[in-house]
C-alpha cells in the first residue's frame, strides 16, 4: 500500500494535536483501550468533551502543560493509503522539532485559528514548508465553530494567506484551503453540514486523492555507498558489493557509471536485494550493487551515471535553519554530514539572515541564534558531490554537527 507522510504546522493551540486525534477518531483508528484512556483523562480534567490532543501528546510535561514539545508520529490507514502523520509543536522554542517533522513529509497541514487569522508563526511555518519544498500544503482554518462557521472570516483569512503565497520562493507548491473544526469534526473526515457555503473536499478526502506524482520529486539517480560488503566465504570469495540506497531515480544493470570522487569508470554488473538479482533498482530502495571492474570504493563514495554528474567542489552556499543556542559565527567549524558522507566545514561568510515573515533579508549579521534562517557559505576540508536542493532533495541537503557536543545543530539546503 502507498505510504503518505504528512506533517502538521501552525502556532501554539491552533489545534494540530486535536485535529490528528479527530482524524483517528473519525476513521475509527483509535483502539478501545486508547479511547477509554482519553475519556478518562478528559473527565479528570473536567472537560465535557473529549480532548483528542491526548491521543498524541504523549509526554507527561506535554499533558501537564497542554502543549506539544516534540514530534509524535501517528499511524493510521484507510483502504487506500497508509498515513504517517508527524504532529509537530507550534511553540517557537521548539521550531527545530517542527523542521524535523516536516523534513521527511510529502505533504503538510498548516493550521490557522479562525479567531486569530494569519500570525507570525503561520508565516514562519509556511516559510519553512516552502523552504523544504513540500509539494502539497493544506491550509486548514480551524475552530470555525468559534466564529459561527462564518464564510466571511474564512474568506478574509484566505485572502491574507494568499498575499504570503505571492512572496514565496517555491511557486509550484500546491495550496488548498479548507475550513474545519477539529474539535467538532467539521470537514475533517466528514463534510460539514454547518458550512454549506464550502463545497470542496474534507481534509481526509483531499489527502486520499493526492496522487504520487503530485508529491514526489524525481531527479537523477545518486547512490551514496553506505557499506562495503565483503563476505570472504567460500561461496562468495571475491564478492565485493556496495550497499546503499538509491535516491532520485533508478539504476539498472549495464548502466555506465562513475565512482566519485575518484571518477573511476565502470558498469553496473548486478543489483541485489537480499539474495535475488534484479534488473533495476528503484528510487529509495536499499540494494547492493556490484561493478564490472575491481575498483576501490569505500563508504562516502558516490556512484552516479556517467553522463549526469553532480557538482564536485570544496565549498557551497546554502540556506540553513540554525537550531542551537550556541550561535553560528563566521569562522566556526562543524562536522557537515551530507547523506552518509562527513567533512569538516568552516563558515566562510554569513551572507544574510532571512526573515521568515517575508519582510526581507538582513545583511551584516554577526551570528545566528536559535531558529534563525540564513544564507551561509561553507568551505570543506575535502570535496563533496552535491546538487542544488531544488533539483535533488537528498543530495541537496545536509546537517551540521557540533564538534564538541556532537549534537545536530543545523539543517541546510544547498543553493
Amino acid at each position, binding site marked *: *500500500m*502507498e*505510504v503518505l507522510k504528512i506533517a502538521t504546522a501552525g502556532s501554539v493551540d491552533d489545534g494540530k494535536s486535536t485535529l490528528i486525534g479527530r482524524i483517528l477518531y473519525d476513521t475509527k483508528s483509535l*483502539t*478501545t*483501550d*486508547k479511547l477509554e484512556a482519553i475519556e478518562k483523562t478528559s473527565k479528570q480534567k473536567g472537560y465535557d468533551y473529549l480532548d483528542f490532543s491526548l*491521543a*498524541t*501528546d*504523549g*509526554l*507527561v*510535561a506535554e499533558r501537564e502543560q497542554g502543549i506539544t514539545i*516534540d514530534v*509524535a*508520529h501517528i*499511524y493510521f490507514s484507510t483502504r487506500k493509503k497508509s498515513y*504517517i502523520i508527524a504532529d509537530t509543536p507550534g511553540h517557537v522554542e521548539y521550531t*527545530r522539532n517542527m*523542521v*524535523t517533522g516536516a*523534513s*521527511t513529509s510529502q505533504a503538510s497541514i498548516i493550521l490557522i485559528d479562525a479567531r486569530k487569522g494569519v500570525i507570525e508563526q503561520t508565516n514562519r511555518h509556511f516559510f519553512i514548508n516552502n523552504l523544504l519544498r513540500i509539494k502539497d500544503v493544506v491550509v486548514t482554518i480551524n475552530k470555525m465553530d468559534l466564529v459561527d462557521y462564518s464564510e466571511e472570516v474564512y474568506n478574509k483569512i484566505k485572502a491574507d494567506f494568499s498575499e504570503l503565497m505571492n512572496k514565496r520562493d517555491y511557486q509550484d507548491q500546491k495550496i488548498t484551503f479548507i475550513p474545519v473544526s477539529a474539535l467538532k469534526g467539521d470537514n475533517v473526515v466528514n463534510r460539514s453540514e454547518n458550512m454549506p457555503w464550502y463545497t470542496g473536499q474534507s481534509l481526509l478526502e483531499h489527502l486520499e486523492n493526492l496522487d504520487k506524482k503530485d508529491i514526489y520529486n524525481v531527479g537523477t539517480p545518486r547512490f551514496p555507498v*553506505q557499506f562495503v*560488503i565483503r563476505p*570472504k*566465504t567460500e*561461496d*562468495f570469495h571475491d564478492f565485493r558489493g556496495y*550497499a546503499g*540506497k538509491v535516491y532520485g531515480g533508478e539504476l539498472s544493470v549495464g548502466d555506465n557509471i562513475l565512482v566519485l570522487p575518484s571518477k573511476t569508470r565502470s558498469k553496473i554488473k548486478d*543489483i541485489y*536485494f*537480499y*539474495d535475488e538479482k*534484479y*534488473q*533495476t533498482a*528503484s*528510487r*529509495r*530502495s*536499499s*540494494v547492493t550493487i556490484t561493478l564490472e571492474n575491481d575498483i576501490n570504493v569505500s*563508504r562516502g563514495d558516490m556512484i552516479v551515471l556517467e553522463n549526469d554528474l553532480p557538482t564536485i567542489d570544496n565549498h557551497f552556499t546554502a540556506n540553513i535553519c540554525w537550531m542551537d543556542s550556541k550561535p553560528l559565527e563566521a569562522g566556526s567549524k562543524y*562536522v557537515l*554530514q551530507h*547523506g*552518509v558522507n562527513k567533512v569538516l566545514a568552516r563558515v566562510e561568510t554569513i551572507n544574510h539572515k532571512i526573515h521568515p515573515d517575508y519582510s526581507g533579508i538582513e545583511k551584516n549579521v554577526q551570528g545566528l541564534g536559535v531558529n534563525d534562517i540564513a544564507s551561509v557559505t561553507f568551505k570543506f576540508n575535502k570535496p563533496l558531490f552535491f546538487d542544488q536542493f531544488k533539483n535533488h*532533495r*537528498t543530495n541537496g*541537503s*545536509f*546537517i551540521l*554537527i557540533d564538534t564538541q557536543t*556532537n*549534537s*545536530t545543530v543545523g*539543517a541546510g539546503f544547498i543553493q
Partner: protein
Amino acid sequence: MNKDTYHINSLENEAIYIIREVAAQFEKPVLLFSGGKDSITLVRLAVKAFYPAKIPFPLMHIDTGHNFPETIEFRDRLVKELGLKLIVRNVQDSIDQGKVKEESGRYASRNQLQTTTLLDAIEEFKFDACIGGARRDEEKARAKERIFSVRDDFGQWDEKNQRPELFDMLNGQINLGQNVRVFPISNWTELDVWSYIEQENIEIPSIYFAHKRKVFLRDGMIWSAEDEVVYRDDNEEVIEEMVRFRTVGDMSCTAAVLSEAATISKVVEEIRDSTISERGARIDDKRSEAAMEKRKQQGYF
C-alpha cells in the same frame, strides 16, 4: 525490483538503510533480542541488509528468567541456523548480586528489573549502539522517540531535549559514555510487522498462534495459569481456553487474548479487525498513565 515502492517495501528499505548505518557508524553495536516477533523481524532485516555476508554484530538477550520456554528454544535454534553470536545476561544474576530487588505480590514482575541488567551489560561490553525492535505506534511516549536515540552515561532518555533528526540523515556521533538506542522499525505498525512475517514466511514461536491453555481471569485480562511465575490467588479460578499471545514479554506481565487464529494469515486478519491495541495486554503499562515514559527515562529498552 518493483518499479513502485509500496508500503511494506518502503518500510523494509528504510529499516535496512538504518541497520546499515549502525554497522557503519558504530564500533560496537549489538541487537537486543527478546525472542518476540519484533526482534525476530529485526534479525530478518539484518540478514537482508548484509547478505551475502553475515550480520556483523552479536545479538544480546536480557533474560528475565520468566520467559515462555517456547521463546528460549526458538532463540537458540535461530542463532544456530544463522550462525550468529548470542550474548545472554540474566536478571537473576542482578538479583543475586543484590543490585535489584525482586518485586512481590499480585503484580510482581521482572520487567522493570531488566533495565539494571541491560545497563550493566552495555557497560561490560562497551556497546555504543543497541538496536531494538520498539515501534512508535506501540505507545504514546514511544511515538516521540527518534530513530537514533541518544542515552547518557546512566542510560537515560532526555525526552525534552532530543536531537533534531532531519531527512534520513542519522547522526551517530556521541560523547564518551553515551550510547545510542536505534529503532529501525520505528515507523512500522503492529499490522505491518505481522504482514511482513506473513509475506516473508518468517518462523515465529508457537505461542503467537492459538492454542489451548490453562488460564485465569483478572482485571478483565487473561493470564497463563501454567507457569509458576504468574502470581495467582487461590480464589482465581483456572479455566481452559483457546488463546494466543500478541506480544511475548516477561510472562508475569503478558496477558493472552482469546483467539482461534492458528495460522499466520488468520493472525493478520485478526489484528486487522482488532479494536484493542497490542499494549492493551501489557499490565506494566497500566500501572500509570506515564508508565512507559518513566521506564524509558531510566534506561529501559
